[in-house]
């Protein structure tokens, strides 16, 4: 079966944020070295897998250590040739519970997703309709919103756009259909097709929060 670490999920802006570099730098790395080539969606949007994020984090780590860019990519290529996948960068545990809003149309999926997220220490609010999700978004100010795009008769995309207008909130879109293009265009930073594997769900949320955890100092604290 497919290894979920290879599943294309993240938008270029999400990866750029995780690495702390610009999307244009990412595009130029891809063009110059070709070592990390994200999958292209039907609409030709870049979608990076978790494994590729780790590869780019490896390069970034080398750069931070003073290694030249071309040398960093050469080291990465050597590792990949030997079949070595750079290890996932450690995520610093958050200093406070992070609030996740789960806007999910399927009550069975909602119950399971909430369970898996809570066991990871996240605080979770569940909305089973778009209207409820809007209300919780305003009242609770979550850091991450997981949106089933098919919620309340396909209102998920509109919901994503409204979250983008607010700014500063990570959006993970999910759907039973492949709506990755639409999701990324509507402002989601990652898309996963359902059904979700618990590990994949949790690690994607962690990735989206990764840099925000590192850059938390001085960041906006959720209003509770």
């Amino acid at each position, binding site marked *: 079966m497919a290894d979920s670490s290879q599943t294309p999920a993240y938008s270029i802006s999400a990866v750029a944020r995780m690495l702390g570099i610009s999307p244009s730098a990412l595009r130029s790395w891809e063009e110059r070295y070709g070592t990390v080539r994200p999958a292209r969606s039907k609409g030709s949007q870049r979608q990076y897998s978790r494994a590729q994020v780790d590869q780019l984090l490896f390069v970034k780590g080398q750069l931070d250590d003073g290694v030249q860019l071309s040398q960093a990519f050469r080291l990465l290529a050597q590792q990949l040739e030997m079949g070595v996948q750079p290890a996932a960068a450690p995520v610093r545990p958050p200093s406070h519970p992070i609030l996740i809003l789960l806007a999910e149309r399927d009550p069975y999926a909602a119950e399971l997703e909430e369970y898996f997220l809570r066991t990871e220490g996240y605080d979770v609010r569940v909305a089973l309709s778009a209207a409820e999700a809007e209300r919780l978004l305003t009242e609770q100010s979550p850091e991450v919103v997981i949106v089933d795009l098919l919620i309340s008769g396909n209102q998920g995309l509109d919901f994503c756009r409204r979250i983008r207008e607010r700014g500063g909130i990570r959006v993970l879109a999910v759907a039973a259909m492949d709506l990755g293009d639409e999701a990324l265009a509507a402002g989601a930073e990652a898309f996963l097709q359902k*059904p979700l594997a618990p590990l994949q769900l949790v690690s994607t949320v962690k990735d989206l929060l990764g840099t925000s955890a590192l850059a938390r100092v001085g960041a906006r604290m959720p209003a509770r």
Partner: protein
Amino acid sequence: MTARLPSGHERLDQILDGGLPANAINMIIGPPGSGKTILSQQYVFHNASPDRPAVYLSTVSEPFDKILRYAESLGFFDPAAVGKSVFYEDLGGALIANGLEGARASIDRILKGRRPAMLVIDSFKALRAFCSDEAQFRRFLHELASELSALAVSSFWVGEYEREEATQAPEFAVADAILALSLRRLNAREIRVLQVVKLRGSGFASGEHAYRVSSRGIDVFPRLADPTDLSAYAMGSERVSTGVAALDGLLGDGYWQGSSTVVAGPTGVGKTLLGLHFILGGAARGEPGIIASLQENESQLSRLAGGFGWSLHAPGVEVMSRSPVDIYIDEWVYELLDRVQKVGARRVLIDSLGDLSLAAGEELRFREWMYSLTQRFSRLGISPLMTLEIADLFEVRRLSEGAFSQLADNVVVLQYIRSRSEIRRAVTVLKTRASQHDIQIREFRISEEGIVLGEPLRDA
């Protein structure tokens, strides 16, 4: 295409157009002893990993310990995986204590706790006994299916269902794929057959596919039934010698490469001998050949060939001898096709069609099989020569097994001719596709060098 779950058995995955759907509800049904538990464990051990573990739940028809005890004797069973990537658990206790509610709660606990990528419930059918009415069972099914569908988990519901139940029982409507294992009576023997009853979102090889069960697991032989592909059916532009010079002349310089030939005749008339001419003559020209015999074993064939000063150990000659007893035609044909590929065979002698036809059990099935085989050979540019025994000893007036000869490009009839006090042998080329040939009855004799053609019989 939806993601697939491979079985680890190439031919089974071929039948399923790549595998069962992953993250779906798959049912494996069949009578006791048909190999359902073995097949589901094949899937488990092939796919489970510590990151993507499998949970095998026994219910009440197969005691937990028994499943484990028998599983241990299977070749693919990996004791090191148990407790790391494969977990066996008992659902029977929860079922007996709290009925379907208890089972649901246990499954929910397992899905959350173990986070399996695969979940087997064996036997699923046994769950039915724990519901007081149909509505309760349907509610249970709905909840279970909803929970399983919300997660990336491939589940297997295993049960002793009859094929007929697949159209009525509600669990079948919920399932994304249904594999039915059954025993089929063919004359005095039974063969095991696997059939895909349902496979959502994908095509599959229809019909019944024979399989065997051994300690290695289930071994399936997809029903050889190639779709008609007229474009691919093209005889080569070269001729292949029959191995008998004078007979080549009768055929207009031998057979077309890739064409199929039936040599029909009564017992002892020289069909196998003509086949040996074909294979050994080809090998001498650098065209490897296989003698696929169901009539004689290798030493009998060696003796026959040795009588003419020939050796079956000559380069480019391969013998595949099998007893016709308890043979599965599709198992046999995959072995033949494997051998053909291995030795790069250009010629194949099949001795005889009658044995294979009996093994097939049904004429229609056999015709389909033979059609597919000759088409495959044709596409590969391989020329098969197939013997066919006919009942008439003298004066063959018609080929009762006409269907077989219709499927062949060339038909050569060998027969006995009564002539006053002696019996002579004669050969006639009844049909050659796409070439001119002489319809003569030519006498032939079996000499020290094999078959030697004589003069045409004008008034036999």
